[in-house]
């Protein structure tokens, strides 16, 4: 029995919303980054699901690129967090507030 495409889409939409909510509500910079990864992965899931549903390889191809980009983004993100931590000794993004209005 094949799982219908809707199930995948609902799961990925759920993951996407989780990601957005995570970014908006969590204050720890690392968790914010994890939420962003979750958003990217929800898109990946959609790509793969559609690709297999339509028997089309482009979607799967796209996913590989996205994974590579996500890894690069995570690496840069962690490096930036590290630089900030050295300056400020905090991971809480609410305390990063020199620049405003």
């Amino acid at each position: 029995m094949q799982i219908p495409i809707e199930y995948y889409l609902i799961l990925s939409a759920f993951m996407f919303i989780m990601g957005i909510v995570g970014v908006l509500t969590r204050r720890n910079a690392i968790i914010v980054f994890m939420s962003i990864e979750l958003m990217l992965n929800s898109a990946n899931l959609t790509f793969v699901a559609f690709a297999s549903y339509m028997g089309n390889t482009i979607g799967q191809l796209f996913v590989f690129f996205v994974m590579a980009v996500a890894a690069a983004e995570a690496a840069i993100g962690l490096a930036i967090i590290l630089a900030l931590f050295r300056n400020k000794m905090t991971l809480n993004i609410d305390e990063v507030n020199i620049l405003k209005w």
Partner: protein
Amino acid sequence: MELNINYIINSLGSLLPEVAVTLALVLIVIVDLIMGKNKSLLPYISIAGILVAGYFVIDQFGMNGFALAVDGGKGMIVVDSFGAFFKTIIVFTSIVVVLFSLSSKEIIENSDRHGEYYTLIFGMILGMFFMVSATDFILLYLAIELLSLSSYVLAGFAKNTMRNAEASLKYIIYGGVSSGIMLFGISIIFGITGSTNLYEINSLMQAPQFQGLVGLLAGILIFVGIGFKISAAPFHFWTPDVYEGAPITITAYLSIASKAAGFALLIRFIKITFIDSINLQGYWTLVNVIDWQSFLILISILTMTLGNFAALWQNNLKRMLAYSSIAHAGYLLLGLAVLSNQGIIAILIYFAVYAFMNLGAFFIVMLIANKIGSEDMDDYDGLGFTSPLIGVSLTIFLVSLTGLPPTAGFIGKLYIFFALVDANMIVVALIALANSVVSLYYYIRVVKHMYLTRPNSQTVAVVPNIANTVLLMVLLLPIVILGLYFSPLVELAKTSVALFGF
């Protein structure tokens, strides 16, 4: 499926600028490794690399065709005059920014990391080149990410200062979220069309059974990603923080080159993906999926109003220019909202002018910051009397940003209003004009600090050296000359308006 290597080799001829940029990037990494502590050669290699790329870009004017096309299909990249125009702006901005970097105090102080600095600038250039000419979502996404990842690092280049690191963190969080949203939009579009190529998606969308509502959702999600790059409201929140926090050379670069690439991408995305037909007057009819016109008008009015009104309260010049660049994004979006070739001509003209005046304004802010270590408006008191060249030049740049004749900024605005009035969008034009009156107030405030306050004993004299004076003139003279004689610019924009395929 057999990979035909000949297609790729044939395509290289149309990708010469990108190849040149890549080779220069590699060369910088190698030279940086070999030369060790001596970084003085790097900027010159960079300029040479950009000039070579620029030569190939100029060669692309008048070309028309796909690169990297698979057998019989549509390509990932198009080469056309429209792309060449934006690439020229990017090349020009890159050269000027590298020249800025030579005298920027912030950059010189971190000379041990100059290798990374110039490498990443080339990463940005490559990303922007691909953004300008990509017609496939895969390449488009990769190009945006290449640009973004490089600029995240560059925004925090002087990592020892608190505000640099903060700018960088804010940039990557906002950037990551918006690219995630955009990617989700792309995945939906892929789901309903089964393709990632803009031309193919366009032909599928014209089919009657197309799902409009899902297309609307996907289109708006993708717009979020691009809107972030061009700092359109309400995706502009990163702009002031990043512009203020980043080193000023990078701020200038982000405000022009990266915005230009974003606009080129947006225009191509909307025009190629959604177009139905173009009539004889140059007006486009779009596929009835998204009411782009109302949407873009709404966004642009929001953008310019927010940008202009927030700029009124700023005391930091960089932050003020950040808000002003948001406002300018609003004017530029109006050119697109007209949905006509007239509007695109207006955008092209505006961008060419905007590059000169914004670079000039940032250059002077940098020269002053090098001397007094502050970008605060109150520290500019009386500067016009002690440093006449700086004062007069900044005044001209700001007047041009306001859009008063006889400066080139007026010509840019004029063409936007031409397009609007021609399309009968009078009320929108009125709002935009009222906005430029508001903008006068904050631009003239800088002038007020420079000239209407007498210098005191602490007022320093900022005298640029010969090289910087020449660079200043290169940015200043076109503002005045194009303001009085703009035929060449209009001619160029006119020939660059056509996108491949339309």
